[in-house]
């Protein structure tokens, strides 16, 4: 099974730059030209969110860019630069300061090529273990052993420093099913049992893991919750590699990524095929052979997988959705406002289609576009056809499914969706169907904890937003949002299953095991996460704005009677004692250290009041209209939503 991911990252200087695919470094002549153009207005440094930008002068930065010497302060600033691009639009002469920074990054070594502090390394080692012993165990891990060319020791030392080594006592839970976690755990010594919760709530043993095996790759790569519980059977030495370190390793050594992707998707594809009614009765060896002949492709959001014109160019293969949502459309006749798109169906993980057709039975092509991040497996027809002849019931099930798709397509016909809203009201059927499909098309069902307001109860007192502001210093929610029936889906983080915002090279956004996605104290407010969020649920605020302003006595006195005083109760707990999570940023309090004082901007988003015992908005609502809920539980599963008629 092969896989492909659409970004280059062959160049080590591009580590941590997944958000800038296709970026091109400037040639030396271009660098000199841009530096000559610079007028030294310093606007780029003022716009830069990196705290060190306050202490970097534009003259020193320009000098370092064009001369062989890079002073340590400029080197530190260059390492901190996240290539957010905020420096570009403010430049009055049109310089590409971000690309100039990239040229500096290329000249500096990748941090993992630098020396390792031996004392820091020694302090991470467990008792009775030497660094060389640990390194030798790490080197035999399949994901490291499979790397070509091999991973140099220097990179492994840095990986060890960035990771957590701990010894789990017998009976200790190393990984819990249902928790969210973004680390990959390698077993360096000892044995673990792997189990899953069965239908009756009992633990079903799955496997025994030995030294040299790893677990948690699904969560580390896809952000999904853990699918099994791992318990130590004996003292187990575990190397817990956090996601940023794993991503750095994968970016420096793409073969490690390919290995992990191949193994992960082979495992999930096997379990998916076994669960699918279509493939019931097919022998395991045949399934494994099928999996070995497949190809996985990853797509980002809103990417066209198939265009209608591609139908005849595509090989006759079956395409199976591993995860994510896509919409199947067909263009209508050109009208006064251009070609309108007709949404024929939505498909999710476990669904499939053939070449450019969606099995609608009319042999007409369709276009397929992703709604969320999606991985699609291509199974060539040449691989399927022997299975059809060996398993006649498989062929029959395909035919039956084909018929059901046709019926569902007719029932789910949504009509034209013109680009411009016409003055007349839509028909009741169209209206209700469109509203329901908004839940799928706009990704509401992707969330795990969505904030909704029952408009039949809401008296629009705005207490929810004000309570959020009181607790956090800046409101993390906005009552405006899409309205479906009597429910308003508020603009607040939905804690997506697969959060695309969690792409921070500074670990500025993280996820608690219980699922809350939160902003950490490492955030510098560069805005990359806000750009990536497809629902505009992340806001970047100036720190000066985020902190409560100092007010006069009269202001406080009058505010006491108009707005009241005090905050909602909810004791803040220390986050997850015993679990290594970055500390949660609290903008309601003034900074206590020099770094905090230099912070210019910060990202603000709802984190379900992580660390508190309740949610301020829900507690403050006097009518009980505000509710945090799992969308599948509240609105129904995707199949239920899509099968409802208007």
């Amino acid at each position, binding site marked *: 099974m092969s896989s492909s991911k659409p970004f280059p990252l062959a160049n080590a200087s591009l580590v941590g730059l997944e958000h800038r695919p296709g970026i091109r470094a400037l040639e030396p002549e271009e660098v000199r030209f841009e530096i000559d153009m610079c007028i030294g207005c310093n606007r780029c440094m003022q716009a830069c969110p990196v705290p060190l930008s306050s202490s970097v002068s534009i003259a020193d930065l320009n000098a370092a860019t064009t001369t062989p010497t890079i002073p340590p302060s400029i080197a530190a600033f260059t390492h901190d630069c996240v290539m957010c691009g905020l420096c570009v639009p403010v430049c009055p002469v049109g310089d590409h300061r971000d690309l100039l920074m990239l040229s500096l990054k290329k000249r500096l070594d990748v941090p993992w090529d630098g020396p390792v502090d031996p004392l820091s390394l020694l302090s991470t080692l467990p008792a009775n273990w030497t660094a060389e012993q640990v390194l030798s165990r790490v080197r035999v891990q399949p994901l490291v052993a499979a790397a070509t060319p091999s991973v140099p020791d220097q990179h492994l030392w840095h990986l060890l420093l960035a990771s957590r080594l701990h010894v789990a006592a017998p009976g200790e839970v190393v990984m819990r099913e249902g928790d969210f976690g973004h680390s990959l755990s390698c077993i360096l010594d000892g044995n673990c049992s792997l189990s899953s919760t069965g239908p009756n709530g009992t633990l079903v043993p799955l496997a025994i893991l030995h030294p040299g095996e790893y677990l948690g790759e699904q969560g580390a790569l896809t952000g999904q919750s853990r699918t099994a519980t791992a318990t130590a059977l004996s003292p187990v030495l575990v190397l817990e590699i956090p996601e940023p370190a794993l991503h750095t390793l994968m970016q420096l050594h793409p073969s490690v990524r390919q290995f992990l992707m191949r193994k992960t998707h082979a495992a999930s594809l096997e379990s998916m095929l076994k669960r699918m009614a279509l493939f019931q009765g097919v022998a395991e060896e045949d399934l494994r052979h099928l999996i070995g002949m497949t190809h996985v492709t990853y797509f980002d959001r809103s990417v066209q997988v198939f265009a209608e014109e591609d139908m005849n160019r595509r090989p006759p293969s079956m395409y199976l959705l591993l995860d994510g949502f896509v919409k199947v459309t067909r263009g209508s006749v050109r009208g006064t406002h251009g070609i309108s798109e007709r949404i024929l169906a939505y498909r999710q993980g476990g669904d499939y289609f053939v070449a450019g057709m969606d099995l609608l039975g009319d042999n007409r092509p369709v276009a397929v576009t992703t709604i969320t991040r999606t991985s699609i497996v291509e199974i060539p027809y040449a691989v399927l056809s022997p299975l059809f002849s060996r398993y006649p019931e498989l062929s029959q099930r395909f035919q039956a499914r084909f018929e059901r798709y046709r019926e569902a397509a007719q029932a789910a016909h949504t009509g034209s969706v013109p680009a411009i809203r016409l003055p007349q009201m839509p028909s009741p059927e169209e209206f209700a169907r469109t509203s329901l499909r908004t839940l799928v098309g706009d990704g509401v069902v992707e969330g795990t904890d969505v904030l909704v307001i029952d408009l039949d109860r809401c008296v629009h007192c705005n207490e929810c937003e004000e309570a959020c502001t009181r607790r956090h210093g800046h409101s993390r929610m906005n009552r405006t949002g899409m309205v479906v029936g009597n429910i308003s889906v508020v603009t607040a983080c939905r804690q997506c299953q697969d959060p695309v915002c969690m792409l921070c090279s500074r670990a500025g956004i993280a996820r608690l095991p219980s699922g809350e996605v939160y902003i950490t104290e490492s955030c510098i407010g560069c805005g990359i996460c806000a750009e990536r969020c497809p629902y505009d649920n992340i806001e970047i605020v100036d720190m000066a704005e985020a902190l409560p302003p100092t007010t006069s006595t009269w202001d406080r006195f009058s505010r006491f009677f108009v707005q009241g005083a005090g905050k*909602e109760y909810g004791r803040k707990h220390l986050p997850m004692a015993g679990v290594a999570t970055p500390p949660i940023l609290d903008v309601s309090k003034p900074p206590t250290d020099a770094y905090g004082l230099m912070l210019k901007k910060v990202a603000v988003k709802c984190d379900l009041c992580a660390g508190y015992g309740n949610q301020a908005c829900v*507690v403050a609502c006097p*009518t009980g209209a505000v509710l945090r809920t799992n969308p599948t539980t509240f609105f129904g599963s995707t199949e239920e939503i899509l099968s409802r008629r208007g």
Partner: protein
Amino acid sequence: MSLATKPLSPHRPDLPPRRLWTVSVSKSWWWWLLLSIVTYAGMHLWFLQRMRHVSPHQIPGTGPMSIFGWLSLALMALATAYTLRRRYLRMLPGQAQDWLWMHIWVGAISALVALLHANYDHIFYNINLSLPSLLSGDAGPLSGYALVLLALSGVVGRLLDRGYARVMSREATTNGVGIPQAVERRITELEAMIERLSAGKSGAFQQYCHRAMQESGTLPAPSPPLASQEQADFHRMVEVFADRTRLLHSLSQQRRATQIMRWWRIAHITLAIFTVLIVCLHVGIAAGPGLLRRLHLLH
């Protein structure tokens, strides 16, 4: 959660049906109702038992009835605690809606217990709304009426909240945009769109747009004479203007509903302040001297 489809209005079959998801009511609604019913039932039985051997000439609010005044005052204080929780003592436990249900049910029975205290004087008999009568009995009748009126205003408020919240919900569902903040933003975008469409056009086009924006409602007639290359943008402007008009109507409906709910709150709070003052006056006049005597501060 239940799912239902409900027509928006039986009188407006052209409006699309709304898909309803029901958020379950807090359990505190049941608990406080039950507690209030049990409390009032107990107090009423006790009242009947105490009044068995009381002379018909007993002055209302005195003798065995006086204890119910204190009970009503305590219940009133408990009901008032909601305001403290909502505005000043937010650190008190429980959700705001639990406190509101407490406020509603306890507030209702505080008025009923006050009627027990007055032995229904000035309610079922001896009804006299003249000022001397209201101020008689240490301003007892006035405080009783104020409390009953306050409770009734609360009932009206609940009905208004339910009714107008649904008006706003219906508008938000059908206007294609949402709540007033979203509608205002959309209207601004549409007006900017109209400005962009009229930019660089002939004087007739721009004047027509200007008149259309000034006169909210139907488009001015007749349409201006336009060059052929302006026709497409003109049709587009008509569509955008129709959208804007529809949203303005929806916004005015929602704002009116919000305003009514806000006015009710102002009236209810004002009435509550007045009631608290009158009740305190009544308690002060009626019970003050006796209390001071007991404390040996008065002969």
